[in-house]
């Protein structure tokens, strides 16, 4: 849950990158750490195994001046994707404000993606939350691979609902779509503090109220 400190004029927001093992969650944070230049950024912390697999979480803190009169501190976390670390994923979700679900575009990883998305919803319930309450954004990662699943297939599988989530194509390893995904999630969270809030913004951003790019392109919103 967002923490507002009126004394230091600071808002802290927690965004969690979720998704199956090796889908690119940590790569998103590594790329952000390199790409972000204007926001004040902290050190990237990775609690990983010797083989660079996330064991507990990765953490990156970004301070911005987006809201008038307030410093906004975005606390970015990843969860460990491997199935054996489910308890750890539940712990990392504690106090979450926004979620970026990273989908691996490999055909052969679809079952893992679906399982992870279901697991996310189960773990939110464990934390007395749901995707209706928590703003989330989808990122279709690894769009540069030759056998990437088509976007319309991914949209049908992960975004086939009345209120569609914002979805972005990305290649996290090169940086394409990484900042766009984070900014979409950040804007959804910040919109909660608007004097003229969009009534649908607390959960999923509806297609009509959030600008989307007209074309489906890497790094852009999925039309």
């Amino acid at each position, binding site marked *: *849950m967002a*923490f*507002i*400190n*009126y*004394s*230091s004029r600071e*808002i*802290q927001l*927690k965004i969690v990158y979720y998704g199956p093992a090796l889908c690119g969650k940590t790569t998103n944070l590594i790329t952000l750490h390199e790409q*972000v*230049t*204007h*926001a004040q950024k*902290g*050190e990237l*912390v990775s*609690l990983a195994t010797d083989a660079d697999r996330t064991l*507990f*979480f990765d*953490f990156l*803190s*970004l301070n*911005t001046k*987006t*809201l*008038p*009169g*307030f410093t*906004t*501190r*975005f*606390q970015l*976390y990843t969860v460990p994707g491997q199935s054996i670390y489910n*308890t*750890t994923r539940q*712990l*990392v979700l*504690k*106090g*979450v404000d926004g979620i970026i679900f990273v989908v691996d575009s490999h055909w052969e990883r679809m079952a893992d993606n679906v399982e992870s998305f279901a697991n996310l919803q189960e773990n939110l319930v464990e934390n007395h939350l749901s995707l209706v309450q928590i703003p989330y954004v989808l990122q279709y990662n690894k769009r540069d691979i030759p056998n990437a699943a088509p976007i319309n297939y991914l949209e049908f599988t992960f975004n086939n609902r009345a209120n569609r989530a914002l979805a972005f194509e990305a290649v996290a390893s090169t940086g394409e779509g990484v*900042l766009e995904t*984070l*900014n979409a999630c*950040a*804007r*959804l969270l*910040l*919109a909660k*503090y*608007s*004097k*003229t*809030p*969009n009534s649908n*913004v607390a959960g999923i*951003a509806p297609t009509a*109220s*959030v*600008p989307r790019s007209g074309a489906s392109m890497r790094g852009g919103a999925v039309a």
Partner: protein
Amino acid sequence: MLTAEDQLAIESQLNDFLRKSEAQWSALVDKGGNLFAQSGNTGSLDLSILSALAAGSFAATHELARRLGESEFSALYHEGHGHHILMSALHFECLLVTVFGERTNIGLVRFYAQQATSALNGHLRQAHEKEVRMDPLALEGDFLSDTAAIS
């Protein structure tokens, strides 16, 4: 949500705790890893990272204890060579994190931490009751424009 008044009261409590216990640094952190208030000196350490790791460490150990059937788990102590950490559970999903060195000892820190815990719980309760009555934060702008929040 903390008002300036809450912040002052909590920092004053942390200052008092540090003075009595001779600990180096103390902070009020929530179990999601947010730093609410702090007092003392950690040099150039990034306090966001310290808070995130402390909350993660406490959560992992707490879960381990829970699975072992230990329901009264309320504090966690890490002993190092020169620096030690004591984490104490507070109400409202918060933690008191204390870093201390060789000037003091765990017995003294734990003793005063228990007193501070009780006082901090009182402040947290007051802040919580106030929060329920306060209007939510509302700012100009819709924040949904294409302007990048982070760049």
